[in-house]
């Protein structure tokens, strides 16, 4: 379970998160929508401790992420994150990209790590690209590789930060299909996205962020069918 309690975060004078409260249960898929600068991506980087927070608490399975005593490297092993820019390790093959962390962080031996990586890469449809270098892959393939790389650590939670935003339109579908598949398999996910159809289809709950505040959260039918908040209505009208 991920518990976000009254989290505030600013970059210099800019207040990005102004008291966010959100609890995500095991097996739940929560999508976060909202305009740019609404703080939704920042929230994800705070959840796995890549960014410090100003006040409030984030608990992952009861462990406080920003507590001084928390071993972040250990905590991050159970929280996979995939970014808008897929950030392949360009000097490693697809297989090596995926085996690196399991081998070095989890200490799994090479053969076993490769077996895990192959399974995950086949899972995202890259079973035939094992010895290819990332520069030879399309954006969509690199993004799916990044997903496999995160999955190879067997995380309990997956965070997706606008994973289709940097892709050519014709490549968006293949990545969204991969996310849908994960959601159907029961992975606990928080997805920041601009893909409204995707949000409606896969989410258990949809959260609408506006200027650092979670203006509204509810079932997708409610958010998309009967938004309560004025801002939510305006936002949904603008993206339709």
């Amino acid at each position, binding site marked *: 379970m991920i518990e976000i309690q009254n989290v505030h975060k600013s970059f210099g004078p800019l207040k990005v998160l102004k008291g966010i409260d959100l609890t995500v249960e095991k097996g739940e898929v929560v999508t976060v929508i909202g305009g740019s600068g609404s703080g939704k991506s920042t929230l994800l980087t705070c959840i796995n401790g*890549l960014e410090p927070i100003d006040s409030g608490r984030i608990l992952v399975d009861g462990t406080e992420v920003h507590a001084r005593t928390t071993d972040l490297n250990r905590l*991050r092993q159970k929280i996979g994150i995939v970014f808008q820019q897929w*950030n392949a390790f360009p*000097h490693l093959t697809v297989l090596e990209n995926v085996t690196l*962390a399991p081998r070095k962080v*989890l200490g799994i031996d090479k053969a076993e790590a490769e077996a895990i990586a192959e399974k995950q890469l086949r899972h995202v449809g890259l079973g035939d690209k094992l010895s290819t270098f990332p*520069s030879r892959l399309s954006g969509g393939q690199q993004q799916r590789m*990044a997903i496999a790389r995160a999955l190879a*650590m067997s995380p309990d939670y997956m965070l997706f930060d606008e994973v289709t935003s940097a892709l050519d339109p014709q490549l968006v579908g293949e990545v969204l299909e991969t996310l849908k598949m994960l959601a159907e398999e029961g992975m606990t996910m928080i997805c920041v996205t601009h893909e409204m159809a995707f949000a409606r289809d896969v989410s258990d709950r949809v959260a609408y962020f506006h200027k650092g505040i979670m203006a509204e959260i509810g079932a997708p039918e409610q958010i998309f069918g009967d938004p309560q908040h004025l801002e939510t209505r305006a936002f949904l009208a603008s993206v339709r």
Partner: protein
Amino acid sequence: MFNTALSAADLVFLAKGAGMTILVTAISVAIGTLLGILFGVIRVQLGAKLSLPLTFFLDIFRSVPLLIQLVLANAFMGMVLRLQVSGFTVACGVLSLYTAAYCAEIVRGGIDAVPATTRRAARSLGMSWMQDMRYIVAPLATRIALPSWIGLALGVMKDSALVYVVQVTELLKSTQILITRLQEPLFLLLICGAFYFLISFPLARFGGYLEKRWSHD
């Protein structure tokens, strides 16, 4: 058509000088690179402000002519510290620091060129700072820094000609000795130049080979 007094023994003498050039260069580049990596990483980690003293220290070695550094270091060892240090040691010591000063900049540039987002991806997989440095930053920065480093190594090799001022008989000094005796300056400088080329060429080619091997495009 062409008469020269150059004997086989003279060629061996030149080859020995070339050997000294290679030795001084190899030692200095090896020590200088290790120190340069250390200084470069320290500079990146501490940031511009905190590493100012180190930057200032390294700038001295980058801005004072090598010839002056060699003479002063030699005098300092003998007259101030009253240490019996061989010219060879002084030469290697000064050239190492000189190399380190330039190498630190190359290393810093290489590390800075690794995208922050790539490093963040590594950390988000649970890798520690050290693992990120070792498995992501080091290989990527090495690829970026290699051409500059090869240039530095070749430069140090040629700059090592100056160590004659601390009584080290390297390739150029050996050539000068022969010129004084044989009075054939142009011919001997031609041969000396050929020796330098023979030393540099494999290093430059090796750099080219590595660059090619590392590019996956």
